[in-house]
């Protein structure tokens, strides 16, 4: 290998038809990069339709990976390299390729009819419109078939190996080691020796072919990142969420119960948890969203750590049952993997527009605890925290994630679970220690306002709970006016008291300055990168990224006072900004968009710079 360019980080996007194996290709590239010591972040972008018509814009599936020798927080704004398997993929993704970036196109797919189907007037690989890029035109289909000519396999199957051919090329161009992927192919196709051989051969052939291009194309090297020592693994947000619940159940010494109904982009949590029966995880795929939460409520009443997972439309259906859980004052975790709305909206696209729904989306004054995960590997922590708060405060907790962090993958330094996630102290009674004559199910801790947890099977503690208003003293049905006020005050105070049981809000950057960014949820990576860039420029900018949304940590109000200006970036039409202004009266300004995509670092930098200029 001769000359190469050393770079700090690279963004590659693989794109093709949804049947071309782009998610697989991207995942292989990112796994290899992680194992080679790079920090990475990935972003899959796939259509809502399982198999949209071939060659159409609607059917384009993409996978972006950002890998580097420094800390990587986002999958990157613009791609340094775009792999386009067909004209539609080029049409959709060219706008996100850096000017002067590398473009690998499968020239076999650029027939006149396919070019027209993608909406090009003329064939882009001949028309000169790609002149601003380093274009590598390769007939990937035919070269793959040629490379596999000695393998006994039909042509269609051979052609399907083209993603590995292209992957082999990119491995050469970015100095990736092929071993991890070759091994993966071996494990995956152990029952199909001819497919095993074909895919491995295609990959090696792609890499060899790329070598012959060296004259015209430069290769790039990205050194290992300097990251915290420890053992790392890759994890995506939904898996991280699922594992957080398993750990929480273990820490609480309770069985885990999930009631769920399939919905994009939350279903992977159900898939993941349904695997772990050995952890006493019971997954119940219900007949609808309402039954899913109601079954979880039943399981919680019977003594499980119970959760339900969904996305916005499903949460809307669950609203009445969430209200019941609030009224029962019982533990329950509701996960909302947010997607674009309203209504069915954009099922596979990310958004943060269910914040108001989480806070206010129920009848009556119905406060509950809300937490939000900030990045894929934070989902583990916040799922654990959601469970801990639900069990320690006898309250439903809504955990917000979003399609972006749910599907995004990043390295995760495996935590020390025996110290950091060791024990949750739930409120379940030991019936032997209870004075049953004088016990009442609604009696509560005077400070935290939390009631006891007595479950069926406990002798002497039989009681009745319902959604009708309950007498503060006896727990019996009560229509008394003053009692309803008292119970409503108590439900509010109970949630407010959670402030004493959550960490203080952390600030990144100086504790005072010109501009404070208040962000929350899955935008963390982009906001963090934008802030760091501006700090390097000497700007007095700090970040307060909220993970505890309701109640907020008790020092938030104090922090806000130390800044001249406050900006709230969020992927909705401006929701958190209202809450911040209503709570703290601080005239925060909003930067928001709803395009179904995460923030770009560059646009945030522009927005923050503008805000700084106005200070």
């Amino acid at each position: 290998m001769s000359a190469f360019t050393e770079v700090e980080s690279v963004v590659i996007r693989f794109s093709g038809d949804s049947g071309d194996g782009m998610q697989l290709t991207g995942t292989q590239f990112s796994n290899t990069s992680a194992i080679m010591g790079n920090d990475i972040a990935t972003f899959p972008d796939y259509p809502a339709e399982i198999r949209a018509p071939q060659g159409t814009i609607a059917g384009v599936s993409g996978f972006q990976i950002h890998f580097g020798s420094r800390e990587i927080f986002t999958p990157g704004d613009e791609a340094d390299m775009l792999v386009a398997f067909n004209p539609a993929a080029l049409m959709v993704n060219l706008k996100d390729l850096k000017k002067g970036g590398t473009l690998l196109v499968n020239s076999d797919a650029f027939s006149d009819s396919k070019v027209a189907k993608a909406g090009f007037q003329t064939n882009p690989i001949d028309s000169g419109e790609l002149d601003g890029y380093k274009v590598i035109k390769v007939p990937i289909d035919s070269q793959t078939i040629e490379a596999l000519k000695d393998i006994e396999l039909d042509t269609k199957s051979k052609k399907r190996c083209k993603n590995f051919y292209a992957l082999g090329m990119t491995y050469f161009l970015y100095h990736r080691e092929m071993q991890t992927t070759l091994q993966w192919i071996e494990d995956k196709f152990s029952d199909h020796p001819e497919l095993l051989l074909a895919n491995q051969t295609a990959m090696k052939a792609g890499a060899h072919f790329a070598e012959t291009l060296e004259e015209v194309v430069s290769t790039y090297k990205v050194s290992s990142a300097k990251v915290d020592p420890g053992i790392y693994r890759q994890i995506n947000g939904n898996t991280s969420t699922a594992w957080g619940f398993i750990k929480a159940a273990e820490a609480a010494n309770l069985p885990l119960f999930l009631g769920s109904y399939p919905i994009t982009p939350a279903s992977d949590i159900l898939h993941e948890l349904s695997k772990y029966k050995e952890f006493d995880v019971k997954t119940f795929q219900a007949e609808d969203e309402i039954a899913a939460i109601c079954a979880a409520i039943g399981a919680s009443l019977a003594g499980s750590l119970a959760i339900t997972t969904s996305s916005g439309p499903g949460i809307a259906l669950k609203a009445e049952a969430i209200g019941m859980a609030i009224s029962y004052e019982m533990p329950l975790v509701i996960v909302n993997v947010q997607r674009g709305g309203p209504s069915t909206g954009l099922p596979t696209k990310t958004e943060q527009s269910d914040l108001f729904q989480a806070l206010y989306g129920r009848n009556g004054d119905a406060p509950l605890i809300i937490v939000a995960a900030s990045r894929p590997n934070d989902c583990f922590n916040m799922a654990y925290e959601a469970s801990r708060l639900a069990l320690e405060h006898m309250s439903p907790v809504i955990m917000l994630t979003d399609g972006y962090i749910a599907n995004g993958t990043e390295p995760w330094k495996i935590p020390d679970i025996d110290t950091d996630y060791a024990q949750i102290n739930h409120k379940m009674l030991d019936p032997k220690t209870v004075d049953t004559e004088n016990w009442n199910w609604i009696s509560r801790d005077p400070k935290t306002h939390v009631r006891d947890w007595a479950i069926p099977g406990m002798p002497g503690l039989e009681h009745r709970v319902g959604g009708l208003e309950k007498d503060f003293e006896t727990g019996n049905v009560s229509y008394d006016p003053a009692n309803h006020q008292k119970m409503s005050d108590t439900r509010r105070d109970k949630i407010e008291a959670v402030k004493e049981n959550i960490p203080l809000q952390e600030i990144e950057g100086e504790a005072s300055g010109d501009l404070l960014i208040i962000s929350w949820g899955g935008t963390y990576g982009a906001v963090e990168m934008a802030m760091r860039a501006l700090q390097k420029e000497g700007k007095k900018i700090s970040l307060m990224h909220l993970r505890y949304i309701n109640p907020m940590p008790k020092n938030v109000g104090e922090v806000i006072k130390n800044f001249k200006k406050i900006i709230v970036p969020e992927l909705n039409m401006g929701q958190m900004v209202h809450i911040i202004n209503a709570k703290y009266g601080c005239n925060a300004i909003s930067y928001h968009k709803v395009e179904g995509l995460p923030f770009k670092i560059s646009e945030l930098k522009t927005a923050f710079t503008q805000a700084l200029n106005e200070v």
Partner: protein
Amino acid sequence: MSENTELTYTKKDFSSDQEVKWCPGCGDYAILSAMQTALTKIGRRREDIVFVSGIGCSSRFPYYMNTYGYHTIHGRAPAVASGIKTANPNLSVWVITGDGDGLSIGGNHLIHAIRRNVDMNIVLFNNEIYGLTKGQYSPTTQQGHITKSSPYGSLDRPFSPAKLAFGASATFIARTLDSDSKHMQEIMLEAEAHRGTSFIEIYQNCVIFNDGCHSQYVDKESRNDHSIILTHGNPMIFGGDIKKGIILDHLTLKVVELGGTYTEADCLVHDKTNEMLASLLVAIDANPAMPKLYGVLYAVNDVIYNEQLTAQIAEVKAKKGPADFHKLLYSGDTWNVE
């Protein structure tokens, strides 16, 4: 299920301290009383019994039972109960619902609980009207019936609860009546003994909004001529002064008078395990010429959701060995940064 011979409960042990607030004369009182008595005989500890209800007059039931009780939201009791039973299969779980709660807003949960065959008892009080919301037609209201929301007569075709349960693959379908405490208790005991979802429909009278809707086949004076109490292994015979029976005529059930052309020997013998017979028995509900059927219409054994889940967990544990979260964390590709 743990049989416990030492349990010596009386009916009072199952009465809560709450004042019962149904209308005077409501059929629910008789059902409550029958249930409290039946529970003294099922051999279950009081703390292991759970009542779950939705919304409606019938759904106030758990407040009056000195067991664990959950008055949930409209129509959702079968889903909550499924969660309770799945989480703790040792419990005796009873769903109390009505024709509006169970068949209208909660119809989906009812059929799916029955389909899964979760081991619990669903008791549906059928008074063919919405009572708590003060008198609108329900999914079992007869066509043409005048109610507050159908001043010119109800247009809806009514459901037969038993037929719906049968269509949902019920393994136990029974019907009883609020005016016969002994029969109600027998059916409750048999339902509790059945493994799987037991579906019981109780003809219940609403004195205020639909008084007498079942009287022809429920009142003592007329019921002999308009209903049969089915017993497994016995011929289907009924009638007061004139004895009648049910025969199978081609593919149809038919009422015949006995003593002339037909004798008892010609009558169908009830077999609660026969699926074809059950399909005919649940089909005659809507036919006014046919008697109403009480008793266990259908009872068969099939796989039970909660038992299968328990077995699957045991199977996976046996195969994978004890759970180890460390092992899970370090599974797949990991790498060490020094």
